[in-house]
């Protein structure tokens, strides 16, 4: 059987993927877009084509801005395949995905990984209890189902998405029992050192700070500089305990929404055995690429948050720049001036990043937890277990994994990988880069064994 071929396969239909596809189509490339979700939009623009008007008002202007991109994408004529879960990718451009229960293969001259981000794991005591979710997860409830918390809810952690959700909840009329903000005062001071770069992004900055002050104005109790977060409850979350201004405090709530930033979804790039570096600013792995996102000498490029967190607008611009590069690599011509325009846009939209990264750097104790905290949710491996493997001589995640099964469950290490690297690094007093990461292999999403019949 001949494998289906195309000029470009885009994996992911978030802002990076949609923009890349539209740009590539405008250049005359044939484009196939695969996304495991059933609708376009990715994380930020989830359900963008069918948001009820009232909900659109609640979600705000940044969300609604996605409509233009979605329209451009739809008009581009890209071959979009929803419900297509990519489980394997090769450096020469062959992609295997499962759709409608069967595995299919498609190959292309160029492949773009635009698989976005996921919320950073938040391993603290009790984080596995029902009633504890990511703030991003709760936002997915809001976007996808118009679902809002019905009882007392606490938002805890740090990062723009946490404040954005608080702001969206206020607009939706949701009562917040508290916003537990783990950003220490010292972070503001440290972040000011990065403000230089942020001046160009000041509109974003003002917008971001505006969200926080609106939350305060709404008389939501805000606990700034909180630390030592801990979920209360035995079988269900019943509240949160934390240290604030030297005192231990508790807030009762059946729903606790945790968030401490988003991190790149790097499963696909790792599975290619591409080089990754530890980003000391964002505290995560990012694939090593050239300036337009190409992985080494492969046919594969990366754009958007899966290349390193840059936010929705910059993700889209990166997608477009990658499309230009891929077109040129295949011998195509790019309209004069187009690249320069995009590069200026990108520079503007990433200038705020170092400031945000510094300001919202998650606390060490919420990334590198105490011994009794579960790190691997699937296999229920604790930080203490990991430290005991280090005592036996384990130098990195792979030997630790084989000694204790951490990372062997269905989430394939997504919810524990970063923690495992950092726990081992701290125990060994070594750099994360020296410790390394899990060897990620296909299938990069669990697939049914019957997918091949």
């Amino acid at each position, binding site marked *: 059987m001949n494998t289906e071929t195309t000029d470009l396969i885009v994996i992911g239909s978030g802002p990076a993927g949609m923009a890349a596809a539209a740009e590539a189509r405008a250049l005359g490339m044939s484009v196939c877009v695969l996304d*495991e979700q059933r609708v376009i939009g990715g994380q930020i623009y989830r359900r963008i084509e069918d948001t009820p008007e009232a909900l659109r008002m609640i979600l705000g202007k940044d969300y609604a801005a996605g409509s233009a991109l979605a329209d451009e994408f739809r008009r581009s004529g890209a071959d979009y395949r929803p419900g297509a879960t990519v489980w394997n990718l090769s450096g020469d451009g062959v992609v295997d995905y499962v759709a409608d229960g069967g595995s299919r293969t498609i190959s292309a001259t160029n492949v773009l990984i635009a698989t976005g981000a996921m919320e950073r794991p938040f391993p603290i005591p009790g984080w596995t209890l*029902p009633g504890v979710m*990511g703030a991003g997860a709760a936002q997915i*409830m809001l976007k996808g189902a118009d*679902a809002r918390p019905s009882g007392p809810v606490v938002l805890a952690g740090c990062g723009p998405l946490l404040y954005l959700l608080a702001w969206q909840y206020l607009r939706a009329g949701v009562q917040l029992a508290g916003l537990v903000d783990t950003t220490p005062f010292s972070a503001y001071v440290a972040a000011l050192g990065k403000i230089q770069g942020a001046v160009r992004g000041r509109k974003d900055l003002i917008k971001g700070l505006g969200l926080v002050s609106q939350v305060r104005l709404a008389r939501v109790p805000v606990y700034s500089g909180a630390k030592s977060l801990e979920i209360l409850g035995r079988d*269900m979350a019943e509240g949160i305990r934390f240290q604030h201004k030297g005192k231990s405090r508790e807030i009762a709530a059946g*729903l606790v929404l945790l968030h401490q930033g988003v991190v790149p979804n790097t499963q696909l790039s790792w599975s290619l055995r591409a080089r990754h570096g530890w980003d000391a600013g964002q505290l995560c792995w990012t694939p090593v690429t050239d300036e337009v996102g190409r992985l080494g000498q492969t046919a594969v490029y990366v754009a958007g948050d899966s290349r390193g967190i840059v936010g929705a607008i910059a993700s889209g611009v990166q997608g477009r720049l990658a499309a230009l590069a891929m077109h040129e690599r295949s011998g195509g011509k790019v309209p004069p001036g187009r690249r320069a325009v995009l590069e200026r846009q990108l520079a503007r939209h990433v200038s705020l990043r170092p400031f945000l990264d510094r300001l919202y750097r998650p606390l060490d104790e919420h990334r590198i937890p105490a011994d009794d905290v579960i790190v691997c*949710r699937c296999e229920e491996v604790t930080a203490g277990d990991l430290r005991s493997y280090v005592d036996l001589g384990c130098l990195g995640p792979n030997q630790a994994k084989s000694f204790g099964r951490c990372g062997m469950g269905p989430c394939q290490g997504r*919810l524990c990988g970063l923690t495992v690297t950092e726990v081992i690094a701290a125990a060994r007093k070594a750099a994360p880069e020296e410790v390394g990461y899990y060897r990620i292999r296909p299938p990069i*999403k669990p697939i049914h064994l019957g997918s091949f019949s």
Partner: protein
Amino acid sequence: MTTETLFSIPASAGQKMVRIEFEGETFQVPEGISVAAALLSNGRGAFRTSIVGGAPRAPYCMMGICFECLVEIDGIPARQGCMTPVRNGMIIRRQPGAPSLKALASGGRNEH
């Protein structure tokens, strides 16, 4: 029960609803939302118990990566509730521990 749920979905005019059943209780939920969203806004409590320690668990990520939302749907165990849209007449049950192979293969009939 309703006062105890973690989330609620405001009724909106013209919204098409479907009927689902969870552990013997019937709920009317908006068409098109995920099973996980439907259950979080109706039944309270765990969706499943963990395989290793038997601890209660519920959806955490809502985007298909954590596998904490596994439920039995129409007799087929261990389905990802956050990635599965509700359908009229769906019968959903909790997923205690690991799925059984026979039940996985039953293709729609309940087998306990």
